[in-house]
């Protein structure tokens, strides 16, 4: 066996130890603390906290927001990736930059954009008020902000993947008489399914966890427009630490589930990828 690196054994140990310490301090410790604080007063108070009416309504709202914005972004993301990777058209690089925009803009600013557009004093504010439509400080606003924030996840995952796969298989399918939909359904979709699932997973995690943009447009109305992250903040500000950490632990649990699912997907993904060559 040949050594692949030239670093001394001691240096290797030091480097690994530093990495582990860092991980423990910044990732493991907070996670443990969240669960620890949540269960500090025992399981009963924990259960009470997460089943309180306001908590339940926050959980329901969070699930509803994710259930609306994730499918929307799957459709947008797949359509954008398909257009970008399989066709030539003017303005393509601009579209690619636009897709990245939500990543480069502060979430608070993203939220403010929607307030500016649809708020009471916003561009469409008067018109919306006349028609008795409520977007800001209501569920539609939260959905808009969440869709905006999570837009890049699916597209970012799919574009490199579809770029790498090229368009030979799609061309083969249409040359054999398949329609655009048949080509997508039977050829493209099976080729991108793992990448797509991965993107959906990340998109979902962010949709449920988003704080900044949602905080701006939600108005923090208890039992109405509070999502889980907002609810955590409110409870914490009211010194209800058990309640805050109990709800936070649900979000942390979601993160853990996402992490495991992501690892499983990555494993499947690579397996699939290496079988191609």
């Amino acid at each position, binding site marked *: 066996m040949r050594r692949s690196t030239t670093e001394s054994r001691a240096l290797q140990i030091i480097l690994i130890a530093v990495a582990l310490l860092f991980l423990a301090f910044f990732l493991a410790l907070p996670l443990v603390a969240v669960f620890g604080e949540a269960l500090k007063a025992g399981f009963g108070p924990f259960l009470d906290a997460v089943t309180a009416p306001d908590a339940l309504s926050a959980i329901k709202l969070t699930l509803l927001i994710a259930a609306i914005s994730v499918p929307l972004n799957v459709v947008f993301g797949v359509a954008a990736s398909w257009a970008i990777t399989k066709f030539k058209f003017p303005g393509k690089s601009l579209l690619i930059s636009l897709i990245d925009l939500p990543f480069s803009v502060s979430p608070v600013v993203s939220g403010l954009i929607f307030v500016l557009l649809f708020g009471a004093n916003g561009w469409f504010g008067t018109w919306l008020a006349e028609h008795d439509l409520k977007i800001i400080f209501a569920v539609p606003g939260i959905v808009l902000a969440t869709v905006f924030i999570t837009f890049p996840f699916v597209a970012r995952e799919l574009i490199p993947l579809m770029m790498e796969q090229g368009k030979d298989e799609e061309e*083969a399918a*249409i*040359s*054999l*008489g398949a*329609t655009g939909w048949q080509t997508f359904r039977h050829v493209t979709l099976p*080729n991108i399914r793992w990448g797509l699932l991965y993107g959906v997973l990340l998109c979902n995690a962010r949709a449920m966890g988003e704080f900044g943009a949602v905080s701006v447009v939600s108005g923090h109305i208890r039992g109405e427009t509070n999502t889980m992250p907002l609810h955590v903040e409110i409870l914490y500000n009211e010194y209800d630490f058990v309640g805050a950490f109990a709800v936070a632990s649900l979000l942390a649990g979601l993160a853990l589930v996402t992490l495991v699912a992501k690892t499983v997907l990555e494993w499947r993904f690579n397996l699939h990828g290496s*079988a191609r060559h």
Partner: protein
Amino acid sequence: MIRVQNVTKTFGDFAALHGIDLEIKPGEFVALLGPSGSGKTTLLRIIAGLEFQDGGEVLFDGEDVSSRSVGERQVGFVFQQYALFKHMTVAENVAFGLSVRRKGRPPKADIRARAEELLRLVQLDGLGKRYPGQLSGGQRQRVALARALAIEPRLLLLDEPFGALDAKVRKDLRRWLRGLHETMGLTSIFVTHDQEEALELADRIVVMDHGRIEQVGTPEQVYMEPASPFVSNFVGETNQLPGGIHVRPHDIDLVASGGIPVVVDNVFRRGGSWRVEGRIEGHDRVVEFDVNAASPAPTLGDTVRIQPLRERQFHKRRL
């Protein structure tokens, strides 16, 4: 009858094809031969309908198909990297063209039978349940062919069909494809940059360079009577002697007196002859020629005299 009339194509600033005219008769096996960037693949893709020309027409049996999509033209296209559907079995790949049909789709059992029949035709019977990833390069190539043939194409188009295969497999497949073309009575066009492949397989060769057709002719014509210096250089080996004279290495004889004096730089055996590399005395021009190996090999550094037996002279073209 496939007819290409005055077809032009540009990609941005790059003119890929300048006014191409070409006719392909039923049953012909035609090679589009040229270096990379010559426009041969673009022409093939325009004939297929995978790319659309900026000007000119493509006619199938007198009917203008220029605005028809590839699916409507009923052409079989074999991609360079085969483009097999990796998540489908071999049999599903072959059956794809029939199973996506919306009008007149045959019953499932018929599709299956047809796929099996095609796999037998390409000598892959029994491999229908495998996935493309489990096949060798030559087998994948034949799956791609069977898949293209399943739709009973009126024209078979192949993009560098042997490009991704190793030398031995390539040779076998070439011969087999030629046989298949004949037994099935296909009309086929294939793109290649390999002159040997074009000379061996095609009924007619279309030599292309820089988006223009340099010559169309039988392999014999293209090899023996190249229409331009480019063709002479690209198809077969050529020496360029002073005065625009092109001569093949095997069309040179050694003579005792007269002829052109050449200093011998290198000699090696190539089959039944010596391949001699040398320089024309006084010029720095390299020439290569063959000497029958029954005679002794010329000595390095000696000056020998050569006489072209068959030559072609090209005058500088006016542009």
